[in-house]
């Protein structure tokens, strides 16, 4: 078998490009890039591909959409609304839906892809968080990712406001109320954003520009940066046989991964098209055009804003009126304070963790979540908080569908939002430590195979099988958190860094992270001497027998 000759046409193109870019070496290196083979490494790709789908379908929609709040009387194909006064934005959305072939499909694809985009960013971010893939040298890419997530929220909010239907208009109304609650400048911000009083005639055209130009432009730039950094730093990988900090093992870009990635793009697009074809989303014709005097029960934002809706619903009615000014805490805290409470730790986490653990090493083999119990527990408590807020945002639907009293759901969430994250933290940490112990045990004397064997003496034992090499590498993959520089040096003089208040906070936190840690177990022969583990004690024949059992 020899390499087939390069086809003439391809060679021609290659030569043309290489003459101009000196690209043979560059292309050769990059086409050999290695992608680890694990489904959870594809989650970011879902976000990337759905972003592309959103750009494509969104471009289609702009050909007909008219972002104007000028009022017209409807006379299009949706006869039920004939004669109803509505904005041109709403009217053109109806036109796209009912008078353009494929228009409804593209609207639905656009909206479904948006939901999938943000959901994919979520799960991708959770994967990166729980495996510690954000650690040095990837902190900056974490920042870019977090920015993309927040921009995704904003972009989604802007997008679903555009059709100017009753539901989205209510979202704008709430946005107005939230802006007004900002101390000192709130009223001004609101008047500047809306071009006067709510709703005015400016908000939709302004949102349109932000939605189709500014925010996607920034996002596209950040996506490119995110991807280039990833490419340059190479992928992380899960622990496993042969996987080291100094290498990355997986499928090469060319030819296999290119086809895999291509297939995956088509899967993402295909599922989006499937939903667009068969699952109705955002039926604005049912909501009706926006009017500030009307509202529907069960009014909800899209899922990613649901948590803020939830925090607005369950927060108690606090407001301070003093010195002729009003501080609307019951809006300010849930709508702006809670996002701050969630986003700030999210953004600074890589730096915070590095500061607390003092771990300045480069990490390319990721953590198993269990091996960083405090981080995992913190993450789970964040997920719990978010999830509960999200559910609270649908408390009326929960009340109606599950027949529980409405106020009861509110009270439930008020308590659950405080207790839930704490319980999640404790439970997750316990589970992580338990799993670590199991790993340590399995690494030191194998795992319980379930095979019962009778010894020549007549005694029955359960055979402990050794882990496979790969599994063993995984089981002992935990890396110790480095110790902080001793607070007190050999002569009993406190080190300068630990005396300050921040120093004391830091050593407390460090202690919190490491205090329950299970020491990284020696893989074999740790002195249990029960004859069911440790390779060194095995006789030649027995070792042979065990090896068979392994397979």
């Amino acid at each position, binding site marked *: 078998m020899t390499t087939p000759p390069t086809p003439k046409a391809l060679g021609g193109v290659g030569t043309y490009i290489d003459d101009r870019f000196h690209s043979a070496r560059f292309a050769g290196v990059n086409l050999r890039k290695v992608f680890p083979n694990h489904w959870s490494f594809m989650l970011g790709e879902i976000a990337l591909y759905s972003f592309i789908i959103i750009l494509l379908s969104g471009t289609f929609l702009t050909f007909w959409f008219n972002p104007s709040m000028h009022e017209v009387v409807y006379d299009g194909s949706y006869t039920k609304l004939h004669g109803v006064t509505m904005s041109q934005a709403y009217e053109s959305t109806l036109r796209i839906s009912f008078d353009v072939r494929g228009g409804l499909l593209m609207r639905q694809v656009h909206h479904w892809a948006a939901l999938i985009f943000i959901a994919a960013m979520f799960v991708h971010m959770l994967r990166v968080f729980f495996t510690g893939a954000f650690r040095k040298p990837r902190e900056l890419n974490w920042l870019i990712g977090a920015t993309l997530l927040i921009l995704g929220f904003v972009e989604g909010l802007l997008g679903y406001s555009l059709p100017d239907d009753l539901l989205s208009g209510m979202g704008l109304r709430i946005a107005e109320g939230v802006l007004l609650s900002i101390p000192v400048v709130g*009223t001004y911000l609101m008047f500047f954003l809306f071009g006067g009083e709510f709703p005015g005639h400016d908000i939709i055209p302004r949102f349109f520009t932000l939605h189709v130009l500014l925010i996607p432009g920034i996002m596209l730039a950040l996506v490119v940066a995110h991807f280039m950094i990833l490419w340059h730093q190479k992928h992380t990988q899960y622990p496993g046989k*042969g996987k080291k900090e100094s290498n990355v093992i997986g499928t090469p870009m060319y030819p296999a991964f290119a086809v895999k990635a291509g297939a995956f793009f088509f899967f993402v697009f295909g599922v989006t098209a499937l939903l667009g074809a068969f699952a109705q989303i955002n039926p604005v014709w049912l909501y009706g055009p926006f009017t500030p005097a009307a509202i529907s029960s069960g009014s909800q934002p899209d899922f990613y804003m649901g948590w803020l809706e939830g925090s607005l619903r369950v*927060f108690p009615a606090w407001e301070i009126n003093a010195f002729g000014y009003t501080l609307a805490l019951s809006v300010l805290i849930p709508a702006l304070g809670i996002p701050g409470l969630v986003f700030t730790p999210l953004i600074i986490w890589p730096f915070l963790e590095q500061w607390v653990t003092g771990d300045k090493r480069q990490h390319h083999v990721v953590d198993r979540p269990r091996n960083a119990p405090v981080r995992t527990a913190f993450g789970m408590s964040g997920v719990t908080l978010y999830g509960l807020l999200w559910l609270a945002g649908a408390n009326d639907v929960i009340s109606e569908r599950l027949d529980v009293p409405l106020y009861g759901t509110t009270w439930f969430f008020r308590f659950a939002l405080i207790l839930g994250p704490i319980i999640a933290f404790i439970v997750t940490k316990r589970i992580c430590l338990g799993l670590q112990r199991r790993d340590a045990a399995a690494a030191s004397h194998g795992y319980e195979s379930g095979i019962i064997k009778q010894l020549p003496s007549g005694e029955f034992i359960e055979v402990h099988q050794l882990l496979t090499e790969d599994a063993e590498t995984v089981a002992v993959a935990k890396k110790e958190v480095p110790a902080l520089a001793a607070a007190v040096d050999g002569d009993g003089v406190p080190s300068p860094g630990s005396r300050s208040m921040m120093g004391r906070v830091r050593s407390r936190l460090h202690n919190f992270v490491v205090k329950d840690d299970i020491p990284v177990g020696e893989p074999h022969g740790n002195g249990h001497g029960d004859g069911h583990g440790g390779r060194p004690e095995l006789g030649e024949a027995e070792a042979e027998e065990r090896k068979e059992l392994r397979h």
Partner: protein
Amino acid sequence: MTDNDNTNGSAGVPGEEPADGAETRRPRVIGTPPPAESHRLLSTDTPETDGDPYAAGPYPGMAHERSEERIRSGVRWAALFFVIAFLGSVAFVAGYVIFQVGDLWQTKWSNMALGGSLTVILLAIASGMTMWVRRVMPHYDVVDERHPLPSEQPEKQDFGKFFMAGAKESGFTRYPLLRRTLMLAMAPLGLLPLVLLRDLGPLPEKKLRHTDWKKGTKLVVDGTGEPLRAADFSSPGGIITVVPEGKEHDLDSIAKSTVLLIKLRPEELELTEEQMNWTYDGIIAYSKICTHVGCPAALYEQSTHRILCPCHQSTFDARKAAKVTFGPAARPLPMLPITVDAEGYLVAQSDFHEPVGPSFWERG
């Protein structure tokens, strides 16, 4: 992950093929380095042909035993999917021509035809490609060595010196006047766009304190624009949404002025005397804009006299001047003083006595 039989290609260990790697696996003590592995290394047992390093494939030493029969079946599957995808495109174009949009059923069929065929096309291509990569292409893992990210010390030092030499040459470090005036020139530059944004909207002034209700403004029913006589709105337990006459289509006005009119039995009201004077024969008018974040507090339970905002469930008691009984709203809904004119039509006595809608800083 942990199933050893599946780590095919043994992480790029050349020569550990073929077939049942599990049987021939050498026991290896943890901590000893794995056998030399890199895709750039040529495997010794891969015969070179005429000096062509890629004679056996793009990643020398990487091989994957798979029966020809199995590969052919993979090719057939992939080809089948690609043909389906092509037929899907034909169906898409046909669907575009055949199914027109217009009424809801037509739109539904069109949407299903276009979306369904698009789904078939995309998923068929995806499945075909997956078949291709999984059944036709060889499967192996390649090891890529990382290069340490920090630069070598001499490189760093050299760059540092080079950079500072450049700074010195430019005079930037040497002439503070140059440096400072440049910074002076740059500093306000970021502010200019903000200044330009000033004309985005008018200043708030007192606009949030007033609505379009004035003494004698008729209450007209939202949706029909017809004025309402007290005598017509006479059934206890009744509600209706009203707006100022002449502003029926002015959304900016409705957004502030819309009022929920409720008819109760006069004896059910528990109001101060002043508030009592703002009602007429058990008809009481509350701002419909919730004091929380401005959704219409539109839901009224006549059996409990609760006004509920469906957005965040702030609850107000209609009998007691819309006192807040549950939820995040901190203030009662403002009452609009109403009465009837000579012809018996409901009219406003005046504007609201306090700002309507969500709280704002200057509200006080």
